[in-house]
């Protein structure tokens, strides 16, 4: 694991997960794409699973974040406005949310 010194986002930043249709090995679940959340922490930087899955072992490391979403922002019929959902998302899936 390298440092997260080059991370674009810091805890507290508002972000949006890219709404991107891709095939192959991806670790951004479909249900969270396009959703808005807040950076909870920087987890470090890791090699990109989208490359590792296809034998690219020496690709660049990518900062990994835990993004916290309100359940109500993810599901139309969320059980409670208090509840949250934290998901690990790689930086190349995140956009700054200025809305």
């Amino acid at each position, binding site marked *: 694991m390298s440092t997260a010194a080059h991370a674009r986002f810091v805890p507290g930043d508002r972000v949006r997960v890219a709404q991107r249709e891709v095939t192959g090995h991806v670790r951004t679940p479909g249900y969270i794409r396009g959703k808005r959340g807040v950076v909870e922490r920087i*987890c*470090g930087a890791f090699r990109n699973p989208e490359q590792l899955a296809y034998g690219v072992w020496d690709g660049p490391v990518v900062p990994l974040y*835990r993004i916290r979403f309100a*359940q109500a922002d993810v599901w139309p019929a969320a059980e409670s406005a208090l509840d949250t*959902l*934290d998901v*690990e998302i*790689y930086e190349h899936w995140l956009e700054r949310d200025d809305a």
Partner: protein
Amino acid sequence: MSAEAGSRDFEALEAAFREALIAAGVVRDDEVAERVELIYSRTPALGARVVARAWFDPAFKARLLADGSAAVRELGIEVGTLKLVVVANEERAHNLVVCTLCSCYPRMLLGLPPDWYKSIAYRSRAVREPRAVLAEFGVSLPPDVAVRVHDSTADMRYLVLPLRPKGTEHLDEAACAALVTRDAMIGVAIPAAPTSASSAP
């Protein structure tokens, strides 16, 4: 095809793949055996030790929440490349762990995951209706307790640090560790004080 027949197919596939790797010199027989032994040597008792330590030592708890893997190594538990994130239950917040993409699980601390953790039903419902799932496990949370679901989608692995049950003030650390179940560290159960004669009024 029955689940059992499907499992036999995977066993045959695993054996063929393992033999091919050994024949090609990628791994040795004894390395595979050692790894299997390591996996089976890990049980939820390890995680329970970590939880009880955190209940008894606030400074350890702070280090555990800041860097889970480093804190666990302090206890002499070797966790390899595990990147552990410990999430603490509070009076007004309850944590629940799931891996929607596969079955990521802190095996170095809890051993092998239960079958239900790998089921499509748990994986799809835990993120969407966690309170309904918890109720089916017998955990009914008051409306003013927030549910924090953690989806292990990438490199982190999660362990829930439950609240120490009330009525355990007279127990030592080892006795408290015995109350911490696997399910409590996944977040689908809440540890309870023992109901033995010794703790009765």
